[in-house]
C-alpha cells in the first residue's frame, strides 16, 4: 500500500521536474516554444541538426541551459542537505540557513572573494571558483560542528538552543561580512552583495559541473546513510545499540552537508528554506523513512528551486529578483507555520 504511494510520488515528481525544467528553458526575454527549446537542445548535442537559429543556440548554450541545470542541481543538493541535517539534529526544523551553516559558508566565501582579489588577480575562473567553494565549505563545516556541540547534550539536541545558536552564528557571520564591506572596492562589494541575496544570474558551466559533482556524491551516499539515519532518529545511543557507528555517520553527514552548502553558496549565494520546505512536504506524502525522503527530496527540491527561479525572473519583468528573496518569501511563512505546529512539544 505504502510502496505504491512511494512509487506514485516518484513518477509525479519526475514529471513535475520535466515540466518545470522545460518551462525554465523556455521562459525569458527571448522566448522559446516548447518544441523549439527541445530542438535547440538537440542541436547543441548533435551539431548536425539544422534549422535552428544561431541566436537561440547561443542563448540556450550560455544562458538558459546552464541556469536551468544549476538550478536543478542546487535545488536537489539543498533539499537533500536539509533532510540529512534534520536527521542529524533529529528535528524537522533544522535547515542549513536556519542553523547558521549557510551564513558560515557565506562568511567563508566572502573572505575568499575578498582575498582572491588581493592575492591572485590572475587566477583562472575555475581555480577562483574552487577557492571560494573551498572556503565556503570550511566555514560551513566549522559552523555545523559548533552548533552541534552547543546544542547537543546526552539526551539529544535541544531545538531552542539549536535555533538560538543559529541566530548567534548568523549575526557573527553578518558582522564579519560587514567588516569586509569597509575594505572592499566596488567590484568586490557588488560580488559579496550578490552572494548574500542569492541569485542564479551568473550561472556558468563550471558551476554546473561543480554542483553536479556534489549532487552525484550526495545521491551516491544515500544508500549508505538512509537506514542509519532512520536509526539515529530514535536517539544516538539507540542507534549505537543497533550497530550504527554514530560518530562516523555524524562526521560523514557534516562533511556532506557542509560540502553541498559550501558549493551552493559559492555558486549562487544564500538561498534558504529549500532544505526546510521540501523534506517536510515529502514526509507528509510518504512518511519519515529516509530511504524515500532523501531521493524524493532531491527531485522536489529541484522542482521548487526551478519554480522559484521562474518567479524571480518573471514576476517583475524586465527586472530580475534575486531567487534568494523569492525563496525567503515562500520559506519564511512556511517556517512560521512549522513553528506553530511544533510549539506545543518543543524542548
Amino acid at each position, binding site marked *: 500500500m505504502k510502496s505504491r504511494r512511494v512509487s506514485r510520488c516518484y513518477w509525479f515528481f519526475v514529471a513535475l521536474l520535466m515540466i518545470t525544467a522545460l518551462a525554465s528553458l523556455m521562459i525569458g526575454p527571448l522566448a522559446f516554444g516548447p518544441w523549439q527549446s527541445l530542438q535547440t537542445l538537440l542541436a547543441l548535442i548533435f551539431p548536425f541538426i539544422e534549422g535552428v537559429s544561431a541566436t537561440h543556440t547561443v542563448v540556450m548554450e550560455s544562458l538558459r541551459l546552464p541556469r536551468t541545470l544549476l538550478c536543478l542541481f542546487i535545488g536537489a543538493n539543498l533539499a537533500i542537505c536539509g533532510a540529512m541535517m534534520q536527521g542529524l539534529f533529529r528535528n*524537522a526544523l533544522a535547515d542549513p540557513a536556519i542553523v547558521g551553516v549557510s551564513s558560515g559558508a557565506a562568511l567563508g566565501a566572502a573572505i575568499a572573494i575578498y582575498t582572491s582579489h588581493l592575492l591572485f588577480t590572475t587566477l583562472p575562473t575555475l581555480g577562483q571558483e574552487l577557492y571560494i567553494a573551498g572556503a565556503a565549505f570550511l566555514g560551513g563545516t566549522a559552523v555545523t560542528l559548533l552548533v552541534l556541540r552547543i546544542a547537543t547534550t546526552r*539526551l*539529544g539536541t535541544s531545538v531552542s538552543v539549536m535555533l538560538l545558536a543559529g541566530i548567534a552564528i548568523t549575526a557573527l557571520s553578518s558582522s564579519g561580512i560587514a567588516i569586509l564591506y569597509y575594505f572592499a572596492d566596488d567590484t568586490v562589494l557588488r560580488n559579496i552583495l550578490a552572494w548574500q541575496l542569492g541569485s542564479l544570474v551568473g550561472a556558468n558551466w563550471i558551476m554546473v559541473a561543480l554542483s553536479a559533482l556534489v549532487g552525484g556524491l550526495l545521491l551516491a551516499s544515500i544508500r549508505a546513510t538512509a537506514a542509519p539515519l532512520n536509526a539515529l532518529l*530514535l536517539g544516538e545511543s539507540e542507534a549505537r545499540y543497533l550497530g550504527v557507528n554514530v560518530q562516523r555517520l555524524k562526521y560523514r553527514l557534516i562533511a556532506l552537508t557542509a560540502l553541498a552548502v559550501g558549493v551552493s553558496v559559492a555558486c549562487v549565494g544564500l538561498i534558504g528554506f529549500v532544505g526546510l520546505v521540501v523534506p517536510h512536504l515529502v514526509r507528509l506524502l510518504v512518511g519519515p523513512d529516509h530511504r524515500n525522503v532523501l531521493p524524493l527530496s532531491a527531485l522536489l527540491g529541484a522542482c521548487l528551486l526551478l519554480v522559484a527561479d521562474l518567479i524571480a525572473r518573471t514576476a517583475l519583468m524586465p527586472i530580475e529578483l534575486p531567487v534568494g528573496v523569492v525563496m525567503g518569501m515562500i520559506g519564511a511563512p512556511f517556517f512560521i507555520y512549522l513553528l506553530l505546529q511544533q510549539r506545543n512539544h518543543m524542548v
Partner: protein
Amino acid sequence: MLDVIDGHFSREGKVILEKINFTLNSNEIVALVGPNGAGKSSLFNLICGEYSDQGEVILDGVPRQSWSHLSLAEKMAVLPQSSHLNFPFTAHEVVSIGRMNKCCNQTENEAVVNQVMAMFDIDHKANAIYTCLSGGEKQRVQLARVVVQIWEPPTNGERYLLLDEPTAALDLFHQHQLLQQLQQLRDSRVGCFVILHDLNLAARYVDRILVLDQGRLVAQGAPSEVLTPALLHDVFRLDAQVIAHPQHGHPVIVC
C-alpha cells in the same frame, strides 16, 4: 556469559558506582533493584558501553570494545529508559528499524516484525503513528523493536537483552505479560538484565536479583534469599513482611 569486572564510575568527584562484579548468564533473567539514586541507570549505562574504561565488560570471553558495532548489535539489544522520537513513523516502521542489519529477505523480516508485535500485544496499532500512541503503547513498540533485533541466534556467542525500567509505563496486565515474554526469551537462551522497581514483580518472575545501594552491590541471589525484612529495612528503609505466595511459593512483600 556477560561479565562485569570491577565496574566503577564517578561524576564530578562523586563516586556513583564502585567495585561492581557480577555475571549475567544467557539462561537467566537478572533484575537490578535499588532505591532512587542508587546508581542503577549508571550501572546499566556502564554495561551498554556509554562510559569508556570504567571497569571491564566481557561478553562471551571477549572485552566489549573488541566487538565490532555490527556483531555487538547482533547479540545485544538495549532499551534505554526513555526514547524520544518526534518523527511520524508508524509503529510498524519503528519496529522494522530493529531489523535494519538483517539481510534475510523482506517477507521473512516482515514475518518476524509481525510476530513480535503480536507477542507484545501491539500488532493492532501497527499502522498507527508512533508519536500519537500512549506511553504504554510506545513502550511496547520499543520493546518489540529491541526484541526483533536479536530474534535470531548470532554468529558468535550468546544473546543479551538489557532493559532499563521497561515496566514504567505499562499497566499491570502488560507488566506481567512482559515478564512472561522475558521468561520465554530466556528459555530460548537470551540473557535478560532488567531494572525493576516492583520487587513483587521481580520476585515472581526473575531468576536472580541484584540489589544496588549507594553505588555498591549489597546483595545478589535468588529472590527468596535476597528479599528479607532485614534487607528491605536497610536498603529501602521499609518495615515490611515477607510472606510466601500461596500458590507459587515465591516471596511476596507486604507493607
